[in-house]
């Protein structure tokens, strides 16, 4: 049966039930069309411009990393006192960015937060690209990255001399690799039904073959759907403690040392809250750009942004509270070295970095208490950038200010990044955005099947409840107000046309 016949039929049937607005097939097809459009058309000017900038940044990064590997890490501004600086700052920053993706895709799935549906795919993609960016930094810090496999416990000719399982740095290797693997599996499994949808709407050719291979022969069987939902719930259940463990382990890189400024039990929860905070900052930045560039305002609505702003406010306040606790514990603990580091952060040579961090992470998010700020897309965009800047500086402050003045005053130095280090940081942003832009152009960036599932439940509820409930309702009713409204109107036109 062709859609041309089906649509009026449905309109008639809908009419019999009391509303011509419930136009299921057209509405469902419209969702497929909307999400598949970027994949089936040539990229627009805005996309090309963004890609050009991202790719230029990536090229700069490749150049800097190539130079560093060829010459040695002497090209960085590190020295005997400050042995970790830009590289580990960037590593922790990027791992943190990834956490929001898992939070949205796994934790919000377990809590049945339906507003996550249209943003979870993009957030998961962001997680993967962020973890790849993060993993790059310890690799290049090794100096001889081609020997990176030495961190794995494999039978070797040196004894076998096993890796040191008591070292948090090794825990990191396992945490990051597990995180990357499970995120990839979760992401790919989520896309299988969408690959099948794309396969069945693409004319024979290379693209159809690729979609066919990726869809693994998915045919929409409900017996499979039923198991699939179980699988997604299980993966979400596994990913949730995983994401908490990853940043906990990252924080232990510092907390298990005896260095004043690092040696604190507060670090694991403080780092996890900071990670989610920075991740939500990045998700907000990306989604504001994406909805504008790809014209997906009907799917990534202002209510999504509002919900994300609230998460930023919550986690930002947790981070602010942690700063206060850290300062208080340093003063109340009476350890002069600990206090010297904390005091040094606020008034020492890196005070500018400390106050940038406080302004961006503690002061700026307080604006989000205002509904007007949360409703303004430009304001949210600026705030999300500030969050990213603030959280980068947080890691810089933790790492560099704790290291640069050690117990022995004669070792005190000032660390300055070199051009190569700054270039590598820019390059990591280039890598991240290049991957993300390719993702939104080549893969279904919105989970088609999940949106359809929500749309199927949504509109009828919205129709029953009427507009008054929508005004009162929070983000969980997102979908009723979001795409379905536009789709209903569009569907109606198609039915009459």
């Amino acid at each position, binding site marked *: 049966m062709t859609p041309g016949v089906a649509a009026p039929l449905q309109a008639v049937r809908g009419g019999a039930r009391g509303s011509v607005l419930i136009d299921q097939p057209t509405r469902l097809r419209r969702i497929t069309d909307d999400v598949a459009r970027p994949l089936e058309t040539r990229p627009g000017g805005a996309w090309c411009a963004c890609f050009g900038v991202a790719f230029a940044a990536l090229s700069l990064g490749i150049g800097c990393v190539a130079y560093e590997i060829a010459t040695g890490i002497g090209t960085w501004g590190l020295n005997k006192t400050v042995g970790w600086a830009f590289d580990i700052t960037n590593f922790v920053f990027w791992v943190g960015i990834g956490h929001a993706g898992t939070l949205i895709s796994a934790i919000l799935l377990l809590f049945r937060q339906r507003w996550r549906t249209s943003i979870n795919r993009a957030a998961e993609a962001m997680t993967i690209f962020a973890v790849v960016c993060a993993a790059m930094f310890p690799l290049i810090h090794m100096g001889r990255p081609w020997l990176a496999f030495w961190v794995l*416990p494999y039978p070797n000719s040196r004894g076998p001399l096993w890796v040191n399982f008591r070292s948090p740095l090794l825990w990191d290797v396992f945490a990051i690799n597990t995180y990357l693997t499970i995120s990839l599996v979760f992401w790919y499994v989520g896309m*299988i039904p969408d690959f099948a949808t794309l396969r069945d709407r693409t004319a024979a050719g290379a693209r159809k073959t690729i979609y066919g291979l990726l869809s693994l022969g*998915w045919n929409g069987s409900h017996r499979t759907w039923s198991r699939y939902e179980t*699988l997604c719930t299980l993966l979400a259940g596994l990913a949730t403690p995983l994401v908490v463990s990853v940043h906990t382990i990252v924080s232990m890189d510092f907390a298990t040392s005896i260095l004043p400024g690092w040696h604190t039990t507060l670090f694991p929860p403080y780092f996890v809250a900071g990670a989610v905070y920075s991740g939500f900052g990045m998700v907000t930045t990306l989604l504001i750009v994406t909805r504008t560039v790809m014209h997906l305002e009907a799917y990534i609505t202002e209510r999504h942004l509002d919900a994300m702003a609230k998460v930023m406010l919550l986690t930002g306040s947790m981070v602010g509270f942690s700063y206060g606790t850290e300062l208080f514990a340093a003063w109340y603990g009476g350890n002069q070295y600990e206090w010297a580091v904390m005091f040094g952060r606020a008034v020492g040579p890196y005070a500018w970095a400390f106050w940038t961090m406080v302004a961006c992470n503690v002061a700026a998010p307080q604006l989000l208490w205002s509904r007007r700020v949360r409703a303004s897309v430009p304001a949210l965009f600026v705030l999300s950038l500030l969050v990213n800047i603030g959280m980068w500086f947080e890691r810089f402050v933790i790492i560099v200010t704790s290291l640069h003045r050690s117990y022995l005053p004669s070792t005190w130095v000032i660390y300055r990044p070199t051009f190569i280090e700054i270039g590598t940081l820019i390059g990591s942003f280039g890598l991240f955005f290049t991957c993300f832009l390719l993702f939104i152009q080549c893969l279904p960036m919105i989970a088609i099947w999940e949106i359809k599932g929500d749309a199927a439940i949504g509109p009828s509820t919205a129709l029953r409840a009427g507009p008054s409930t929508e005004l009162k309702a929070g983000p969980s009713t997102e979908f009723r107000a979001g795409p379905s409204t536009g789709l209903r109107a569009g569907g109606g036109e198609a039915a009459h046309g």
Partner: protein
Amino acid sequence: MASQCLVASFADPDSLLAAVTAIRARGIKVYDVYAPFPVHGLDQAMGLRPSRLGFVSLAAGTLGLLAALAFQFYANVFDWSMNVGGKPDNSTLAFVPITFEITILAAGLATAFAFFLRAGLFPGASAALAAPGVTDDRFAIVLRWKSTGLEATEAHLILRERGAIDVRHVAIGAER
């Protein structure tokens, strides 16, 4: 084996659900239902048992946990003990993070593989659709018999009654 199929297409999940319930109420078995998204309530309507994938997770997770603990213990205590900061060889607490990661990794991968295996999903698997559009905007019920009988006629009527937009007889079971 030659078998007879009845494929009914639907345009919305509500009529699909009603049709599945009606068909099963008459004691006719539903071979499978095809939909572009997981339709809620269909598990109960089709009488599907809850998936046992959770047991795979549990088993693989337990195995991963034991393997990781045992391996770290073997490497650090038996095979090549290293004195790191005077800590005991068997620093079990220090083995916890890696053990945890391996548990999650084993459980996640095994569950995903078990799903692919059980659902018959692999690269290159044939994806003959039960009806056009079941991965887009259509829903389909497939009934299957070894030989046609009166049941098929009755099922045909029920499906039509419940709002099927198209009901077809298919001679061979190419739907799966």
